[in-house]
């Protein structure tokens, strides 16, 4: 076989292509789950093995859409996701089964998870239904922190934790998914802010990032966990700000409305409790806000959830300290000062988790709720198509699933 500069991989390529197992030889595509900036996710079943296991196949789109796909070099974020998913192994992180590189496309095959937190929250937010049971809520939070703790111990920042990215398997195990924005933080050859300015969906974005911080730390993930905790309690986002879009000059705007939502509940941050505050680039913007006192405790006590709900009131008194512990933990996660914010390990040691009900390995244990299965569509389950209509060419990383966006606006 010829080897030349125009055909530089000559015989190697032919040999390799002939032995590669094809995606469609290995998996039967059951339907299409979702799309994002990266490409699409399909539900699939293995054609081999007796167990009929189910998978979610994430297909990265080729860079150029339409016409003929070209090799253009794999994006750095796809490289990071491939490398990290291949290395990480933990009960509370989605398991990568394999990666298939075929016809200019990358397929990442993950174990399928039947639910996600956004879906659970939406299910419970229906007016006829009850809040998320205490035991389920606590188990979700504990498992989420367990996964985050593993990531941080391994110097990985997730940077995009939000309910849609937290999966739950049919047997009730929380799986942190979508490491598309995750990065190692132990050896930044470049400061972590270069390359990708906008990180974490705005509702879950930590105040130091809103204030223009140039240094991401594990604390940004913990803030997001705090927001998710609050959302599991209230069944709606605690800080639901409106995103200020990037202007034509490509400058990153100050997310004034998001900051406003946070200050309204947590009060105006002070230099006394957060000494580094004046050093943030957007510090001056804070002076134009009205001054607020923290109403987090009031917010927490009016949440129609957990122990305050009708069935819990029957056993009234002993529940009070437990309720207080939940508030303390929430407060520790939503601490303004990133240096004082709880770490994942500290949060897992919090007395909240020592009280009954204890967290369980199956979040659905002793709960009689039948959650709906993940919706899949059969309109477009041709995984091999080159063009992927419905995927955005570019955009901010908060690419929620289109079918979910509608649900979200229902809140």
């Amino acid at each position, binding site marked *: *076989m*010829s*080897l*030349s*500069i*125009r055909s*530089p*991989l*000559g*015989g*190697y*390529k032919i*040999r*390799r292509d002939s032995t*590669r197992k094809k995606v469609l030889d290995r998996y039967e595509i059951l339907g299409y789950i979702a799309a994002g900036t990266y490409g699409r996710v399909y539900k699939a079943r293995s054609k081999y093995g007796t167990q009929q296991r189910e998978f979610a196949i994430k297909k990265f789109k080729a860079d150029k859409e339409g016409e003929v796909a*070209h*090799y*253009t*070099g*794999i994006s*750095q974020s796809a*490289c*990071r996701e*491939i*490398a*990290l998913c*291949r*290395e*990480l*192994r933990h009960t509370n992180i989605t398991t990568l089964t394999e*990666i298939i*590189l075929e016809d*200019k496309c990358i397929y990442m095959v993950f174990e399928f998870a039947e639910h996600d937190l956004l879906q659970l929250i939406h299910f419970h937010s229906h007016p006829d239904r009850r809040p998320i049971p205490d035991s389920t809520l606590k188990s979700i939070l504990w498992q989420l922190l367990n996964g985050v703790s593993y990531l941080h*111990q*391994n*110097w*990985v920042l997730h940077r995009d934790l939000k309910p849609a990215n937290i999966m739950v398997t049919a047997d009730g195990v929380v799986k942190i998914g979508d490491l598309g924005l995750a*990065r*190692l933080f*132990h*050896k*930044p*050859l*470049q400061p972590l802010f270069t*390359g990708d300015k906008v990180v974490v969906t705005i509702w879950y974005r930590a105040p130091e990032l809103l204030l223009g911080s140039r240094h991401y730390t594990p604390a940004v993930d913990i803030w997001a966990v705090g927001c998710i905790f609050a959302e599991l309690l209230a069944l709606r986002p605690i800080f639901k700000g409106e995103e200020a879009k990037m202007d034509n000059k490509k400058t990153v705007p100050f997310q004034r409305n998001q900051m406003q939502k946070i200050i309204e509940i947590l009060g105006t941050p002070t230099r006394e409790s957060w000494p580094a505050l004046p050093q943030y680039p957007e510090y001056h913007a804070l002076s134009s806000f009205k001054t607020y006192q923290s109403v987090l405790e009031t917010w927490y006590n009016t949440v129609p959830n957990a122990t305050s709900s009708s069935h819990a009131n029957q056993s009234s008194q002993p529940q009070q300290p437990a309720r207080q512990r939940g508030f303390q933990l929430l407060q520790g996660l939503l601490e303004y000062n990133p240096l004082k914010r709880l770490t994942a390990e500290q949060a897992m040691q919090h007395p909240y988790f020592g009280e009954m009900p204890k967290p369980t390995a199956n979040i659905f244990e002793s709960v009689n709720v039948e959650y709906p299965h993940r919706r899949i569509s059969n309109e477009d389950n041709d995984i091999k198509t080159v063009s992927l209509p419905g995927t955005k060419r570019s955009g901010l990383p908060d690419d929620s699933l289109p079918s979910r966006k509608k649900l979200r606006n229902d809140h």
Partner: protein
Amino acid sequence: MAANYWTSSQYNHWRFTRPQLDRIRAQTEADTGFRQQDLGEPRHLRIFFHGLIQALGRHLSVRQQALATAEVYLARFYTRAAVQETNPYLVLATCVYLACKMEECPQHIRSVVSEAKSLWPDFITHDPTKLAECEFYLIEELDSYLIVHHPYRSLNQLSKALGASGNNAGLSPDEMQTAWSVVNDSFVTDLPLLYPPNVIALTAIYMSVVLRMPPASSQNERTRTRLKRIMDWFAGCGIDLEDVVYCSQEMISLYEVWESYNEKTLRDLMARLIANKR
């Protein structure tokens, strides 16, 4: 995992014993029909590739750490593919391109291609899709394991620990420099496929200190005391010294082979390899 070599993919999937590595290479020869021995001394070829990677790295101003990752990618790739069935200039440029992304110092694909083309105009076209295509095959051949641990960090830790172990035991700046060079040169050998980074780092320290000592007869009391202290520390540092001795022998034997290395011979060999197949 990313923070811990002992749970990493490098430890679990890309570390072999010498017999295992020999078997993998024999299998690749059988699969491809190309024999390694037809290309002469394998280490001369590795020295040649090492030089090419360093040259491309200099042109792109890439950090040593990223080049080290590129060298490991290249070494892994050619355990499973024959040099003769590929264009190694393209493959190694691709290794540099991918390593830069993984080490968070990304280079635009067009810069990599144009620098490679300016260095090796006979072997690289200006078409970046060739390199992008090669990246797919490279990642596949690496089984998508892209995070690599290097001896540099261990070297710093070990030398610090040695320095803290007692008076005068620490490395002099000269010795540290030598140790760094030994680590850099270790990428020319199979050691990164065979041993953990801390063993290679300790080998580098061993070679920089012990092998540079004057012969026992001309050692003064001070030198003898220091050597003893260092050997005691070696014995107690938890790394198998037999491995260190093996690695040192590999390095010494590399330096011997390096004496007979002639770059032009290799350049001509590559030219024949690629021209013959045109």
